[in-house]
């Protein structure tokens, strides 16, 4: 597991009542039942942690982010943009 993955999973655990064993790149956000408000908080925490802006819109969440891997990839892409 990459350092980036680990940090994002830590944030998800912190903002939800999910445990680490349920989190993986393939885990579907709908299966994890993360509420839209929790998701807004997760994205905020990720942005603060990595000093990036994630292009996330609650209205198109289902289309844009299906799995936790999609979030990790989006964050990795934003970090790469900055470097």
């Amino acid at each position: 597991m990459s350092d980036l993955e680990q940090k994002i999973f830590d944030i998800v655990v912190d903002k939800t009542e999910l445990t680490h064993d349920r989190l993986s790149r393939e885990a579907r956000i709908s299966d994890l039942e993360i509420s839209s408000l929790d998701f807004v908080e997760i994205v905020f925490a990720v942005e603060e942690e990595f000093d990036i802006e994630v292009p996330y819109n609650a209205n198109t969440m289902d289309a844009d982010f299906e799995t936790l891997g999609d979030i990790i990839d989006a964050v990795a892409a934003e970090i790469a943009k900055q470097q």
Partner: protein
Amino acid sequence: MTRVAITGMGVVSAIGNDIETFRRALHDTTGGLAPAQGLDEVPKGITVVGQVRDFDAEARFGRDRLALLDPFSQFAMAAADEAIGMAGLDFRADPAMGQRTACIIGTGGAGIATLQEGFVRLYRDGKHRVNPFTVPRYMGNAACSQVTMAHGITGPSFAVTSACATANHAIGLGFHMVRGGVADRAVVGGTDALVNFGNLKAWEALRVVSRDTCRPFSKDRTGMVVGEGAGVFVLERWDDAVARGAPILAEMIGFGMSADAGDITFPSVEGASRAVQACLDDAGLTAADVDHINAHGTATTANDATEAKVIRAVFGDAADRLAVSSTKSFHGHGLGAAGGLELVAAIVAAQDGFVPPTLNLTELDPECPLDVVTGTGRAMDVRTVVSNSFAFGGLNAVLAIRRAEG
């Protein structure tokens, strides 16, 4: 029961700072959403706003008065001036009439621009003092108080706040006060001045703002667009209006309220449906009596799909013959002013026999199976209109009007 006439209305909005300009924009299908102007910085996630433009506050109020007026008060005062002028009332000339008049002006954000200016001085610029009038400018009742002071309205007066349902609550309360005999007339409405950096950042952070523009009920909608402005109305007893020969714009016939007691942002079909039903019951309407709904129609995924279910739940098969439109596609989401702007649109629809279109709708979302009016609008007989407001926090307020008929 005492009938209640609407004898004046005034508006400040992204599609006009007076009623006739607003009306023309609806007919010409000229939307007012555009990139924010005049800000030092605009948040990246805010592409367009429903900003009040060409509002010459200094010319309207003079420099001395302006020192005490946050923009949310300025907008309300301008709309109230127009409404009271249209109604032909002069409270200063008749103090007894002023005492029998209520003034209820709601707001969602109150003087947020004034607070922000103070914080910028303190926390960014390292200054040690804020504007001496910070408190009287930002307080939530400032707009209401300024309207009473400008016109000599001395009856029951206060502000209400319920986010996106604010104006409908203010208008509906005034309606019930006049109908119930607590006041002879009421100056009512909502106001908000929201196009400033801090407030736009707050909306951006919630991740519900559209990527491009406001597309209510459209399959490709991506969220709401922040608007601002004010809508203010004069309500009075029908018989008084007739007796003094005042022009009657429409009749106020129903008001319903409810709370979801559910989620702070996600709307509830059950809660909102109860408000719509309560409004119909208050007005003595059946589902088949309503011709047009000015929808809450924020263009968020959640609101529009929920509102479609609400309309289907309350109106049943009659929903097939119900022309629905969201004028937020013209003026954005005015928050505390929204119900005011939309009641103006509802009255225009009844007066002109014209349902304004929902702009920017590319393909109707199958989740919103309604007769949504698009294109250039629809010329049709509009006798009865319902105007929905469903707020963040699950507070719902719904108004019904009828075309002016003796």
